[in-house]
């Protein structure tokens, strides 16, 4: 009986220990691909690869691109401030320029005249766009002292080198060793120090174990593709955890490192993304590849969208009869008479004039512009106030003998026994008016004698307004009849 109990207890202990060991110390799964896999690009903008079109001569700074037959056939993926390289007659050598402006889909401007050595039809025009690749994944297997490999598509198109710093139409470029091996910046070759392997696994350095090799992978339909291989090493005795998410980055800020160069467009339809495959693979400490651990992902690149908006300066000018009707005392004038009700935007009808008296009417002027240098409004009369049948005129005012002139600051006009025609201005909200109300002056005759009446040398923040008040006097000897004259208000921006 005692032996039976002992055997039972022993049996229970064994079973319990087995269950605990299975639960808490599971046996590593030797072959299972990582989960939660993705490659996030810091920029998914395709690189620019066009060729020089016809009609560009040495010293031109307007560059025409060839409109067909190249990865890029317009300027749509080019941006002001982009650094571009234009091919020279020396193979592989580029001259660098900066994009100063985009003219249209076929034309852009560079910061300095193009060199003679660049001015041949079909010279390459490139602008590289590169990205930091951030891989995240959750391993489902581990090998002590093993390796994880990250494969990014390289070009296998004939004529395209995968590591010359020139964007390829079928994959990412590793960058060139110019200006020197180990250099940092745009277009330079990716180095092991530009890769940051997960710091929370393995033993030893977090830089890449290997950069610069390629692998050829055959897809299920028998086609082969070339990939850049970037590997991270767990170190001797090191291993990764299973079911724990890791992150690694390929590429550094260009101020202190290098990045893979994004492809130029493979898809001629702009706006359609180019999709590339990447892989994560797993090797053991003897570098044996475990195909069962390989996972595939996709990344998509597309042209950036250039949003441009040009605000053309506009100027708007208004004449209306607001505030100048019957009874108005605009410009500190005596109250406007009944004819004030007949004032329209285009006409001031004085009707029958009161002799030897001031006949006052007015208009309201409004101006607004978004031009940098503001605006100017001028006025001139297109001929004298003239009897429409006899040609007799009412002369331009001398302000009752006060000696006012067309361009002066005006004088007060208090004597009305002589015929005269003139005006004054009341500033309602104008940046600058030329003379203050209470003083009158005659209109300049003809466009050459136009006088400024409203002005702002900066962009006004709101519509600016002024009253213009007309005064017409007729002596008791002024010939009877209908008189007429035209005033031309000219509104322009300031150059």
């Amino acid at each position, binding site marked *: 009986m005692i032996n039976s109990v002992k055997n039972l207890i022993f049996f229970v202990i064994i079973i319990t220990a087995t269950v605990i060991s299975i639960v808490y110390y599971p046996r590593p799964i030797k072959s299972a691909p990582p989960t939660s896999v993705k490659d996030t690009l810091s920029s998914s903008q395709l690189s620019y690869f066009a060729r020089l079109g016809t009609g560009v001569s040495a010293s031109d700074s307007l560059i025409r691109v060839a409109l067909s037959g190249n990865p890029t056939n317009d300027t749509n993926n080019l941006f002001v401030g982009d650094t571009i390289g234009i091919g020279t007659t020396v193979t592989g050598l580029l001259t660098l320029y900066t994009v100063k402006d985009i003219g249209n889909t076929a034309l852009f401007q560079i910061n300095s005249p193009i060199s003679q050595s660049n001015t041949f039809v079909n010279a390459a025009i490139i602008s590289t766009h590169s990205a930091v690749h951030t891989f995240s994944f959750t391993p489902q297997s581990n090998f002590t002292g093993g390796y994880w490999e990250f494969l990014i598509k390289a070009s296998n198109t004939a004529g395209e080198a995968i590591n010359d710093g020139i964007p390829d139409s079928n994959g990412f470029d590793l960058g060139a060793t110019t200006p020197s091996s180990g250099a940092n910046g745009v277009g330079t070759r990716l180095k092991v120090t530009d890769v940051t392997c997960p710091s929370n696994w393995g033993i030893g350095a977090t830089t890449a174990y290997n950069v610069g090799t390629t692998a050829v992978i055959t897809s299920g339909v028998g086609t082969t593709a070339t990939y850049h291989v970037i590997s991270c090493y767990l170190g001797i005795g090191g291993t990764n955890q299973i079911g724990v998410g890791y992150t690694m980055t390929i590429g550094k800020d260009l101020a202190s490192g290098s990045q893979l160069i994004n492809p130029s467009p493979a898809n001629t339809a702009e706006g359609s993304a180019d999709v590339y495959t990447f892989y994560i693979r797993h090797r053991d400490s003897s570098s044996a590849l475990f195909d069962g651990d390989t996972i595939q992902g996709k990344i998509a690149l597309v042209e950036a969208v250039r949003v441009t908006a040009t605000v053309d300066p506009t100027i708007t000018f208004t004449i209306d009869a607001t505030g100048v009707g019957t009874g108005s005392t605009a410009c500190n004038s005596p109250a406007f008479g009944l004819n004030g009700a007949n004032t329209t935007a285009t006409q*001031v009808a004085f009707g029958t004039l009161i002799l030897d008296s001031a006949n006052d009417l007015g208009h309201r002027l409004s101006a607004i512009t978004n031009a940098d*240098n503001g605006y100017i409004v001028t006025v001139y009369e297109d001929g004298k106030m003239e009897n*429409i049948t006899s040609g007799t005129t009412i002369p331009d005012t001398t302000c009752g003998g006060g000696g006012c002139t067309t361009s002066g600051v005006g004088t007060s006009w208090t004597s009305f026994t002589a015929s005269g025609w003139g005006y004054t201005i009341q500033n309602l909200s104008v940046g600058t008016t030329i003379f203050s109300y209470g003083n009158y002056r005659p209109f300049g005759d003809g466009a050459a004698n136009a006088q400024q009446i409203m002005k702002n040398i*900066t962009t006004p923040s709101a519509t600016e307004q002024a009253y213009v008040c007309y005064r017409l006097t007729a002596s008791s000897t002024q010939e009877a009849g209908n*008189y007429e004259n*035209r005033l031309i208000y000219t509104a*322009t921006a300031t150059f």
Partner: protein
Amino acid sequence: MTNLSIQPSQLEIQLKPGTNYVQSYIIKNNGDVSVTLNTSVDTWLPQGLNGNIIYLNSPPNLNISLSNSDLKLGQNFILNPNQSKQLVLKIQGDTPGDYYFTFFVNQDVSSNPSTNSTQLIRLGSHLLISISDSELPTTNFKINNFKVQNPFIDCFFSSVKFSGEIQNNSNYFDKIDNTISISKNNTVINKLTIFPDNVLSHHSRTLRCLNDKSPAECQLSKPLWPGIYQASIDNTSTSFIVLPYSLLIFLLLLIIITKLLIDKKNNIL
């Protein structure tokens, strides 16, 4: 209400001899009545130093026409309330040089037989055109009369105001792209960006500075340390001295008052 607008209100163009340039304008009647309009062009010359102009009553020596199929320069057209019309101006010139003119949209009305005055709007859009074989014609700016406006500059209460003119001695207009550098003890302590005004060929423009995207008087704000300063634009420079005048005057007054009080006390004793 007559309310008209034109867009753009100004253009600055560089053309190669013999090339055509086409520009569209949008004319809009924002008013509540129909208006009859026509178009014209008129040359002008700059007048003075502040962007004023004088019209010459003559068309420019360029081939200018409207490309609208239904409209020619000078021909009347009607714009109804809230209606816009696109006018397409075509410009072609062969002779290198600068051309300054204004494209006008003129209001027109039939006469009204009564004693009255008819008021018409003329909206203008300036065109500054350089015709040159070179895309970036060489311009030659010279600084004239560059000086400090206020002779006595107090450390605490005076801003330093600069004045001057920029003269364009070349055959082509250009924008000012320069700064006023303020230095003390051969060290640049401040820079004032000059407003990028257009300076037309063989004309001058008053110096203005950029202040929050707007033109403003060129001035160095108070307070300033005492000392000798130098302001320079390229190779043109002017010097000015900053002193604590207000403090000196205050001390002087204090000394005088103290002395008067002491004298008064002595007299009493």
